[in-house]
């Protein structure tokens, strides 16, 4: 019985992540359009796009690794989702109730992009290869402040588990974004790169690289990538809410918190042009790194 609840809960979590991620994507398109003084597509446009992509024939075959690439992405997103506590007390979304630790999660989160890199490499499209190298360089850039922020939290609260961090916040009564502000700043600056909106959209770069790693993938491949991207966006936002904003007791609070933190990269992205690769890396190794070091010092002293 308990196993059944867990399996149903896991399925419910995946559906929730898909729906929320897709809707957020649509709302972002609407917000972008309003900033451009356009009317913009309806908020459910992403669902229509996904459905249409799923209905297209997909007769592209460059080898097995290309098929495995989107599958890697999807698996990575879903597995990462399973280790994130969606609500504080489990509730309707008990997941696998793994006392997840952050170090494991850091490894899991780069698994998908690496699989995608292999898949994109096999398509033989030069744009894909350039996109992959850019993506990996950018990952080297933002992973460092991101890991520093997480390590600072681990030192400060003497735990590596996400639920432990959430409990610590519940006990002290303040969110981590206030009790360890430098870690929060470093993590938010790293988040700009993680979401790949402008000015850090150097991987996709539609006009420059013809959408980069996905340039040879259409139809069902693209549908898989789109849905796994939506799930992964939800995963990252929930992780931020869990470790910095004290988690959420119910769905409404979760949506409010994730949406408000999602607006940081989105709104920064709408008004920014694109960086070059070396500019992006230099950005992450500048102020975000500084705040990461500051967070480490703050955590080890206090």
């Amino acid at each position, binding site marked *: 019985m308990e196993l059944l609840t867990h399996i149903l809960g896991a399925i419910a979590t995946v559906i929730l992540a898909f729906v929320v991620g897709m809707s957020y994507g649509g709302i972002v398109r609407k917000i972008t359009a309003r900033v451009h003084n356009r009317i913009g597509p309806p908020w459910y446009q992403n669902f*229509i796009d996904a459905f249409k992509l799923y209905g297209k024939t997909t007769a592209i075959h460059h080898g097995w690794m290309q098929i495995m690439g989107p599958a890697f992405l999807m698996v990575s997103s879903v597995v990462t989702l399973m280790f994130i506590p969606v609500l504080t007390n489990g509730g309707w979304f008990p997941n696998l109730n793994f006392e997840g630790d952050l170090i494991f999660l850091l490894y899991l989160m780069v698994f998908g992009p690496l699989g995608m890199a292999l898949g994109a490499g096999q398509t033989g499209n030069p744009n894909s290869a350039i996109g992959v190298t850019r993506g990996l360089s950018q990952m080297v850039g933002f992973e460092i402040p991101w890991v520093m922020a997480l390590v600072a939290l681990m030192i400060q609260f003497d735990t590596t588990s996400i639920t432990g961090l959430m409990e610590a916040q519940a006990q002290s009564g303040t969110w981590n974004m206030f009790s360890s502000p430098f870690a929060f700043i470093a993590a938010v600056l790293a988040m700009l790169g993680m979401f790949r909106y402008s000015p850090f959209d150097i991987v996709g770069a539609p006009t420059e690289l013809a959408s980069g790693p996905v340039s040879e993938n259409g139809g069902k491949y693209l549908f898989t990538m789109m849905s796994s991207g939506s799930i992964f966006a939800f995963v990252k936002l929930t992780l931020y809410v869990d470790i910095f904003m004290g988690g959420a007791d119910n769905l409404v609070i979760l949506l409010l918190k994730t949406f408000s933190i999602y607006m940081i990269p989105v709104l920064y992205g709408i008004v920014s042009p694109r960086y070059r690769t070396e500019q992006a890396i230099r950005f992450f190794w500048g102020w975000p790194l500084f705040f990461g070091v500051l967070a480490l010092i703050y955590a080890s002293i206090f």
Partner: protein
Amino acid sequence: MINDKNSQKIVDIIQNWARKQSIWVLAYGTGCGAIEIPPTMTSRYDAERLGVRGAATPRQADVLLITGYLTTKTLKRVIRVYEQMQDPKYVIGFGSCTINGGMYYDSYNTIKVLDKYLPVDVYINGCMPRPESVLAGFGKLQELIGNGEANGATKYKENLEWYRANQKKIIPNWVMPEYNW
């Protein structure tokens, strides 16, 4: 149940609705018509509210937009792009040049009638067609897709020999990969 004709019809209706609401355009900037695409997409006319959106590569695109005249040299590239696109796919001929050659009617190095080389679903007349008429063309395409009448790709597959013969008349050095749709 799955191969039942009526359930297939229902699936087709839903899929056609999704297809007409989400049109990803590969604007192949062959001729001068490409200059009318930015105003169509940006804030004045905003094609995105109709679900029309640019696609970066032929693999992701639904609609191939031939904007203006096609020289014999670009025709080869256009054919290659068209054959890389995934079904269901549509072609919009943009401007008078794609209909009868337009102002290039007596040119030695442009093709005159696009329909002999690629199956065109919708023509947009004019030289240049303004963004209003481009949007009207997209509206017509949406109508055709919704009714299931935009079947240029099937026509192309059925009459492939005829199209190939016409194409090879224009392109003497035919070195092209074969695509398996």
